[in-house]
């Protein structure tokens, strides 16, 4: 009996949880309903545990779930029911006062309808129930924008019989009773507004967040505001995690045409060794071994830090990673990045190598002098930079030698292709030695390039 009346709130809760970013399939919401029925609604902690087990499927989701659960049920849904027998549950309480007709009928006697009765009696439980019901009628769970708060507040108050109340107040402005009514009305207005705002937080948060995140992945990284950096870092981490999950394991690929005799025989033992099912030899797709050269001069610095963050969040999908930063001289930053959390490591890298005017020739010469041994036939070299060396010698000869030693060179350039080769850009001179050259100035570009690298086994 109790469970049937609780399904409405549960459905609303699923909606709230979805809009907060939890992915809850219809099947899971059915399970959650069943689970809640099995466990019962009496004990809120137990209900929380139960729903968390059924609905939230990762640690982050569990944290998110906890927050949304508390926010949702704090609104007093179960508060009357949770402490047994202190008060009757909100369900069968006095009439809602939502039906304006009923309210006005009584209004003549100076009463102001059931709303006035409730205010005078100070019956908070009944008021809460009435607000809840009026909110449902007004379609409050569809709220999406903060500009709608006043609109919904007004709708709810009207449904609760505000008009009759106002009429009662204006009819007898002097009476002592009216003063109390006025006070009650003002407080109620505040309460309803707060209630609407809570609902906004509950139902609309996910949507705005999702929208912002989508925008951020497509915005030029150099144009992103400092206050969004924290969010960007989370996004980068999530992307890296996704790629790492996909490519972090040893993957194999069939080499069609080369028979794996041993496994074929084993598989066909049941047919007396006659090979009905053929099994091909497989080759391992190797995890990429990366050497990254990042230009951290003023023009490219913003992208460099996200590239580094991305690569260092990928750790299990890479077999080896060395990072160098340069604007003039080349600095080996692998140590700093591997040892410190990325938030503190990036500024340190910038402090050591950043914000000069770039000199690609010098950086390449430094690399050849000290680190050429890192390159072998499995290594992919990623260069991130705009290729603008301020009219210094580009030293393409060194890049040629690097290309000969390594598996491939990938050059990521934050400038659009049309700008390559203009002014002091040496990009077109470097390009012939690179297997891939790509424009890379948003998070989306970054994800695509790295994803391709991982897929083919760099």
């Amino acid at each position, binding site marked *: 009996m109790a469970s049937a009346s609780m399904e409405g709130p549960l459905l609303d809760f699923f909606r709230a949880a979805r809009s907060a970013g939890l*992915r809850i*399939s219809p*099947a*899971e919401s059915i*399970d959650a309903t*069943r*689970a809640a029925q*099995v*466990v019962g609604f009496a004990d809120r*902690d*137990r209900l929380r*545990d*139960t729903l*968390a*087990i*059924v609905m*939230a*499927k*990762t*640690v982050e989701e*569990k944290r998110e779930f906890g927050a949304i659960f508390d926010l949702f049920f704090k609104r007093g849904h179960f508060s009357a029911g949770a402490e047994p027998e202190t008060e009757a549950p909100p369900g069968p309480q006095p009439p809602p006062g939502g039906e304006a007709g009923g309210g006005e009928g009584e209004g003549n006697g100076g009463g102001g309808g059931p709303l006035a009765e409730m205010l005078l009696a100070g019956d908070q439980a009944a008021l809460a129930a009435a607000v809840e019901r009026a909110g449902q009628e007004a379609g409050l769970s569809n709220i999406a924008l903060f500009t709608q708060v006043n609109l919904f507040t007004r709708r709810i108050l009207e449904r609760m019989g505000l008009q009759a109340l106002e009429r009662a107040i204006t009819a007898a402005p002097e009476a002592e009773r009216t003063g109390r009514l006025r006070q009650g009305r003002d407080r109620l207005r505040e309460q309803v507004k707060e209630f609407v705002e809570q609902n906004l937080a509950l139902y609309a948060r996910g949507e705005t967040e999702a929208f912002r995140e989508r925008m951020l992945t497509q915005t030029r990284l150099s144009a992103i505001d400092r206050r969004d950096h924290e969010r960007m870092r989370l996004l980068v981490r999530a992307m890296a*995690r996704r790629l790492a*999950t996909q490519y*972090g*394991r*040893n993957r194999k690929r069939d080499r069609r045409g080369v028979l794996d005799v041993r496994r074929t025989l084993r598989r066909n*033992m*049941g047919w*007396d060794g006659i090979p009905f099912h053929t099994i091909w030899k497989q080759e391992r797709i190797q995890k990429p071994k990366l050497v990254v050269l990042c230009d951290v001069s003023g023009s490219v610095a913003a992208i460099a830090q996200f590239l580094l963050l991305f690569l260092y969040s990928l750790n299990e999908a890479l077999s080896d990673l060395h990072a160098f930063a340069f604007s003039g001289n080349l600095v080996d930053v692998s140590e700093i990045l591997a040892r410190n959390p990325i938030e503190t490591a990036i500024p340190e890298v910038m402090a050591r190598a950043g914000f000069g005017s770039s000199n690609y020739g010098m950086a390449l010469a430094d690399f050849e002098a000290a680190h050429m041994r890192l390159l072998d036939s499995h290594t992919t070299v990623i260069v991130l930079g705009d290729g603008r060396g301020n009219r210094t010698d580009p030293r393409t000869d060194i890049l040629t030698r690097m290309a000969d030693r390594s598996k491939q060179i990938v050059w990521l350039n934050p400038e659009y292709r049309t700008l390559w080769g203009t002014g002091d850009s040496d990009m077109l001179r470097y390009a012939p030695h690179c297997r891939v050259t790509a424009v890379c100035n948003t998070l989306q570009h970054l994800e695509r390039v790295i994803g391709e690298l991982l897929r083919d086994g760099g």
Partner: protein
Amino acid sequence: MSIAWHGLLSSIDATEAGLQGAGYIANRQISTALYLAHHLRKPILVEGPAGVGKTELAKAAASWLGLSLIRMQCYEGLDESKALYEWKYGKQLLYTQILKDRLGSVLGEEPGMEAAMRRLHGVSDLFFSEEFLEPRPLLRALREPGGAVLLIDEVDKADQEFEAFLLELLSDYQVSIPEIGTVKADIAPIVLLTSNSMRDLGDALKRRCLHLHIGLPDARLEARIIASRVPDAAEDLRRQLVAFVQQLRGLDLKKLPSVSETIDWARVLVLLHAAQLDHAMVRDTLNVLLKFESDIEAVQPQIADLLLKAKREAVPVR
């Protein structure tokens, strides 16, 4: 259908008490998960760091409910012939060899090819029957009379294809064997899957499971676990060692000690007849708690401080 062990899972509190009786100190979430697993007929996916008692939970549940524990360890390259069933090829061959003459005489009497074929059809089914089926863990768990606890250990280590293969089993407690048909469990086993989060599991798998995350326990719970698993440890020692380990978890270490390490350490200390923690003993036995040389080096200079704090904090842990 009345099965004895179904009665045991009558409430969450009963579940918690039952697990405790089997030597497993469960927190509220754990007992709720087990209770729900039975009542909703759903498998539990247990995640958490290594050594917090994921596998232990399955063992405790099996011993409390009086069911047999069927364990399947996952690894890369695990396939259905090792997980589900295989035909006993050798036996099949042997039988055909032995029955060759008989077969010849049976078929020889038939006039014409077609009649012989028909005869043969009747016979061939014999060789792909239950007689020649070698059940592997998953099939065994389904066919166990009276139910079982099925532990699919470290499912994150298996390939993605294997995960997909598990789906039918997990949602309906049945598997399809092409030659025989569908095998369905009479009594749904309690299924636990464990994962160390080596990789994220697929959404399809997660959707079919209840999700339980077991983290590192707080001091109070850990003290209760030690009391239950290493009853010989003196009260003082127990509090101190728990407080010490709790502090270690606050440090920046490569691998934090988990419950299994605490239990091992408690056992070691009991063997050494320790009634109190002291500096030399901690230094000598640190390798039980910490599994990396660099971690041990990082902790060694701090032992005195940690010990002092552990002794001070040890008192309020009740």
